[in-house]
């Protein structure tokens, strides 16, 4: 081996070390960057005609476990669905109330019944009559609060869908651009690891919003489709279209709200579910919350409101001689009576419209004695409790609720309200429990992903030491060869 060859080898060693050093420093710099895939060095000995001629080092992106990545993304979508649904349900459940704090909707019925019970004992007392009116107003307020919470949660879900769609569209555009760069990089043999990292980060963003599957074509382009098989990106990104509704109230039918379309094809989750409807992801969760979960609670609330109004109409003996359609203690839409035969569609939003009949409300110029005598007029005997007993009996008796409310059909108002309140809380707890389980799985998978592709600072530090030594050794080789040349030249001179 000639001295020139020795210098060449040492020089290649220095170059190799510098490249590896650059890779290690990049790793250390990005040690805390989420989604960063560690780079690793591939060092190869060079041979020319069977003789060693130095070393070559390439720094490449470490291989990514695609199965693991898929699982992480599927679990992220699952977690997103559950988190969004749990949050929407919690919002309503918080307002509906906890049985322990005596402010639940069900307890408002208990309070109304106990106020009537107290009035039964002393029907002539004006303060107890007003207590009944207050209890009725409290009940109506509770209905209104829960109804408002439902509509606010639906509006929020709609906004969340809109934000999610914007995120997905932007991310898909970004991925489309990055796909091109990846293809160019592969063709031109350029380091594209940063591009791949960024593309993975954008795919992660999409995966949180929509459950997706991906595969990569030969030229490195990634293709994205929903888990239900609708292509979102294949060469070009397809635009997801959603039109936000600024304010949603109970009278806004589900059918009039925007779905989610891809090239005119609706993929929003519907009931019954279509084969290509979205199932997972935050967007799917928000759709399910907006159009199914919260609408279900709304139906239950409206069914309860209807039976409340109807009970106080049917058991009010004074109304027997009044004009048909005269409202009882509670009024429905526009202050009118509630039709006992109205179906579920006709009473949508009734809970938010329920009010105490102004005739019995002293604050509206009414006479609170009507809660004792019936809404059609005051009787002359102050101790008469016939009507109060009729109302109390009505509250104790079972009623038949609309089966579409999906709770016990034949029960008391209070029983139905208890099931409704408890159901909200239980649904919230169940969804949170499922989300917690999903979060644990997601975090475990995510940790595995980090460990597979992340950076270990100590390992990189160790590499730095080795590289430092290697660099010093190569430099020493050059130094020695230089001295040998000097010695040689001195002797020649």
């Amino acid at each position: 081996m000639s001295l020139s060859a020795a210098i060449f080898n040492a020089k290649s060693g220095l170059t190799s070390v510098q490249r590896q050093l650059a890779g290690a420093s990049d790793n250390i710099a990005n040690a805390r960057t989420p989604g960063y895939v560690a780079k690793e060095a591939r060092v190869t000995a060079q041979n020319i005609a069977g003789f060693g001629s130095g070393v070559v080092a390439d720094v490449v992106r470490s291989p990514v476990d695609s199965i693991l990545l898929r699982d992480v993304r599927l679990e992220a979508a699952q977690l997103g669905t559950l988190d969004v649904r749990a949050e929407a349900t919690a919002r309503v459940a918080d307002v509906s109330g906890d049985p322990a704090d005596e402010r639940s909707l069900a307890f408002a019925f208990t309070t109304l019944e106990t106020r009537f019970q107290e009035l039964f004992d002393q029907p002539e007392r004006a303060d107890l009559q007003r207590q009944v009116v207050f209890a009725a107003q409290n009940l109506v307020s509770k209905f209104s609060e829960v109804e408002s919470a439902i509509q606010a949660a639906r509006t929020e879900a709609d906004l969340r869908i809109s934000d999610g769609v914007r995120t997905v569209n932007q991310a898909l555009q970004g991925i489309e651009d990055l796909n091109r760069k990846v293809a160019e990089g592969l063709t031109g043999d350029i380091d594209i690891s940063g591009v791949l990292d960024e593309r993975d980060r954008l795919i992660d963003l999409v995966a949180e919003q929509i459950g997706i599957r991906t595969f990569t074509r030969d030229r490195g382009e990634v293709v994205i489709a929903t888990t239900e098989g609708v292509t979102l990106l294949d060469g070009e990104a397809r635009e997801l279209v959603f039109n936000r509704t600024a304010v949603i109230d109970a009278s806004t039918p589900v059918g009039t709200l925007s779905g989610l379309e891809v090239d005119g094809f609706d993929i929003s989750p519907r009931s019954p579910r279509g084969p290509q409807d979205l199932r997972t992801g935050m967007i799917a969760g928000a759709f399910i919350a907006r159009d199914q979960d919260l609408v279900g609670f709304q139906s239950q609330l409206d069914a309860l409101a209807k039976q409340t109004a109807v009970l106080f109409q049917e058991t009010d003996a004074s109304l027997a001689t009044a004009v048909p359609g005269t409202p009882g203690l509670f009024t429905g839409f526009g202050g009118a009576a509630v039709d006992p035969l109205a179906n579920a569609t006709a009473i949508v939003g009734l809970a938010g419209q329920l009010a105490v009949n102004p005739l019995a409300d002293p604050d509206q110029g009414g006479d609170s004695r009507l809660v004792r005598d019936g809404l059609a007029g005051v009787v002359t005997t102050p101790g008469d409790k016939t009507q109060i007993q009729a109302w109390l009996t009505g509250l104790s008796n079972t009623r038949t609720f609309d089966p579409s409310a999906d709770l016990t059909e034949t029960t008391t108002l209070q029983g139905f309200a208890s099931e409704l309140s408890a159901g909200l809380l239980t649904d919230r707890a169940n969804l949170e429990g499922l989300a917690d389980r999903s979060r644990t799985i997601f975090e475990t998978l995510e940790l595995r992903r980090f460990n597979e592709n992340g950076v270990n600072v100590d390992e990189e530090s160790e590499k730095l030491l080795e590289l430092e030594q290697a660099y010093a050794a190569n430099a020493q080789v050059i130094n020695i060869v230089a001295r040998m040349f000097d010695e040689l030249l001195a002797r020649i001179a």
Partner: protein
Amino acid sequence: MVKPISTFGQTAFRNSQLRRLEGELATASQEIATGKKDDIAKAIGSELVSLQTIRNQFGENQAYLRSISVFKQRADTMDGSLAEIEDAVNSLVKVAAINAASPLESASTVQLVANSAIDRIVASLNVEIGGRYLFGGAEVENRPAQPRDVGNLGGIAPQDLVSEVITGTTGLAGFPTTDLTIPADIVETTELLARFDDVFQGGNAANVSPAVQEYSFENTFYNGELSGTLIDIRLPNNSYQRQTNDALIQGLRDVFQGAYILASVELDQITDDDAYQQLMTGDDIAIAGALDLLAGGLATIQRARTDLGLRYQQVEASEQATLTQNALFNNQIVDLENADPFETQTRFLNIEKQLEASYAASSRVLSLSLFNFIR
């Protein structure tokens, strides 16, 4: 080869674990402070409906217990009043019975005792609690019994009415004008008793003439509700205990009739023995004398009082059952809502230790670096 772990992954994992532990610690701390489960829905799941139902029933039972308290207060007061009425009637019956066959020396005092008895009965019937009269049925704001010397809404006082009936100066009512203050024979006594019968037993009240109707028990002596409720209460399961006032009213009709007869007739002036006996004890067939009316009315009132006592006992039994049920409900609520203090405390300590260990480990791990050992 062992795959190295990601520094960032480990930090993120540790942070996540620490956050979870801190959350659990906050929950345990909250449960220790309040004694209640932090998230009941999560803790008891499907039993939440039961808890809501139990709480509803507990609340309703509290209302029932308040009603029972009101009932007992009223029943106690009414029982006292009925006892006083019985005593007043007994006093009158005693003195009247002595003079039942013929007027003795004490006959002159019967009138005084009768008036006194009427006043005592009226006062007892007009008992009230918090401005609410107890013996008038639904007419709780009107005193049920009209005092002897106070005019009713039409202006007639009971004693004036009786005076007019007995003296026959009933003008507008158009009664016979014969003065029967001292009945001369059995015919006049029978006529006298018949007039009182018309007044107290509903004859005049059913008369088509409004003027005649005024001369009646219903319109002058008793201002309460007829065929109404003496006392009632709503108990658990929407069951009702109700005693109507029919028996008491009938007793009062008889007692008032007998007492007013004795208060208006001058017994010691009646010279005809048959007339006298007819007045006091009637005949054995159709006509009841003053003493018969008093005795019969007293028995009816006693039956009403007994009935009241029985209902009181039933309500008391219901009270005991409700109290027992609420004690049971309370235990169930405590079981469902309250956090077990020992379990919570133990959990808190465990989490605290775990958290301390995690903090220590995190701190040690974060300070570990290869450079610390090679520089």
